[in-house]
């Protein structure tokens, strides 16, 4: 009888994804309503050393799927490992953070198990003992609430939305190996290139400074990068400036770009087309700096500054730097 929640914990090159720990924290918050236990799954080569960090978030068990074949992510090898862990633990639900890896992996395994999947979940609740997953649809112009008909399935959770909380319960989890079935890998990662640009990754950044047409030209990215540097923020961009060739697509926020949910989003010279809002409207605090007081971005912004980005942003950078240095 399936029971409990299995949380897929993502690591690359031995580094844990913060958003996986958010998914694990949310699984812990939901487990009393769902029943059973929470298990965390680590997949990779020699990843047992990451158990101590995962254990802080209070899973009852940590399952380890380890082999040399799993050192580098490949859809088929990882799908095999996750499927083996599911057979072993027999969970009602599988949680993962909605990352590039999960978007590739989770539906593949869901199809193998013939179970449904709801992606990019931003809220969870229960009604009549059934889990209800809420996700944005139609460019965040609506939200859809989904029910798992058979009370079982996969969920990927939007990063930065669910709180990460260490467990108060000090009991250390059991660690168990997962016996791996043989897998034929037909598509392999042969190289990985770091993308050009920002030092902080957009998807997991707690602060994003984003630029649009209002920065006037690609020569002015440095103005925004300085603000990023004092805030430890990631650099984002609107579609207009990506299409104009001012910056790489990797930075684009919105439809046909990245969906982000930071604590603070500073939109600099971005008018706020619906396609842009689709990618950032779940940010906790939005600041808009734009010289057009009628720009749609102001409807969404918690704080609106009508003014020239190239005048405001350097002053803002200086003010924050002064503040950080004095505190």
């Amino acid at each position, binding site marked *: 009888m399936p029971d409990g929640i299995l949380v897929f914990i993502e690591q690359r090159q031995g580094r844990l994804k913060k958003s996986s720990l958010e998914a694990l924290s949310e699984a812990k918050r939901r487990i009393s309503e769902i029943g059973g236990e929470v298990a965390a799954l680590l997949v990779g080569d020699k990843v047992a050393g990451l158990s101590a960090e995962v254990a802080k978030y209070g899973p009852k068990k940590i399952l380890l799927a380890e082999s040399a074949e799993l050192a580098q992510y490949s859809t088929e090898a990882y799908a095999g490992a996750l499927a083996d862990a599911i057979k072993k633990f027999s969970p009602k639900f599988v949680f993962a953070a909605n990352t590039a890896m999960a978007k590739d992996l989770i539906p593949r395994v869901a199809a193998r198990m013939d179970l449904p999947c709801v992606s*990019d979940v931003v809220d969870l609740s229960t009604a009549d003992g059934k889990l209800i997953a809420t996700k944005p649809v139609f460019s965040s112009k609506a939200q859809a609430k989904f029910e798992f008909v058979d009370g079982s399935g996969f969920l990927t959770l939007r990063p930065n939305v669910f709180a990460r909380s260490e467990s108060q319960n000090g009991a250390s989890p059991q660690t168990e190996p997962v016996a791996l079935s043989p897998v034929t890998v037909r598509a392999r990662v042969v190289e990985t290139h770091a993308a050009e640009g920002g030092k902080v990754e957009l998807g997991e950044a707690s602060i994003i400074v984003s630029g649009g047409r209002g920065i006037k030209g690609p020569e002015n990215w440095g103005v925004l990068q300085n603000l990023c540097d004092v805030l430890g923020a990631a650099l984002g961009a609107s579609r207009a400036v990506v299409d104009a060739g001012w910056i790489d697509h990797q930075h684009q926020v919105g439809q046909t770009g990245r969906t982000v949910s930071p604590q603070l989003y500073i939109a600099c010279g971005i008018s706020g087309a619906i396609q842009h809002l689709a990618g950032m409207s779940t940010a906790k605090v939005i600041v808009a700096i734009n010289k057009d007081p009628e720009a749609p971005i102001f409807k969404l912004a918690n704080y609106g500054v009508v003014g020239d980005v190239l005048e405001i942003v350097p002053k803002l950078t200086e003010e924050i730097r002064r503040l950080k240095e004095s505190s």
Partner: protein
Amino acid sequence: MKIAVCVKAVPDTATKIAIAADKTHIEKTGVRFIASPYDEFAIEEALKLKEKLGGETVAFSLGGDEVTDVLRDALARGMDEAVHLKDELFADLDPLSTAKMLALAIANGGFDLILCGQQGVGGDNNQVPSLLAELLNLPQANVVVKLEIENSKFKAEREIEGAHEIVEGSLPVVISAQKGLNEPRYPSIKGVMAARKKEIAVKDAAALNAKEKLAATKVKLVELVPPPARTQGKKIEGDADAQVKELVNLLRSEARVI
């Protein structure tokens, strides 16, 4: 080289969305349907590969009447054939059931390559390409910005967080297209005229031999709700120095985010 492209008809991304009275659909009246923007990159890649390697291209789409114009547009761009999976039983399918229907339509077609958009705009699930690859028992590469095909092998560059991965493998394969893969062409007038004369094949559940598998829709839409309202924002007035001082003060003491 035989290439299948899966296309989804979605409301134009600039459209206002109104939730219908039943709370589980949107009002379709007056809404213009287009191919999901990522699917345009998939179509373009199929056309470019055909130009280079020869072969045949077939577009598949599941949905109601809104699909016809989208498939007609794919033909106008140069796709050879179009197949519309259409049945009352296909209404409101979840991604897994949708993928099952597409897999039934594609499975025995002898395709070397199956291209999709990386995400169907609207539902925004990013699921169908991976589901389809599993159901067809094929390798996959998702969110691809560069694709090379040679001697029954593929080399795909895909976007991950802060990096690109180069994935290699053998055909057949399922590839999902990301922005940047190519520059989609517009249909030519000649293409539009030719597309009018082409027939769109319609396949229903019976033609796909699909009745049994349909029962598998396992996730139910309970309701659509408007997005959570954001609190009324503050306009910060004054000269630039005063604005900056007040903004920093609010971010620090009111919003507590810096």
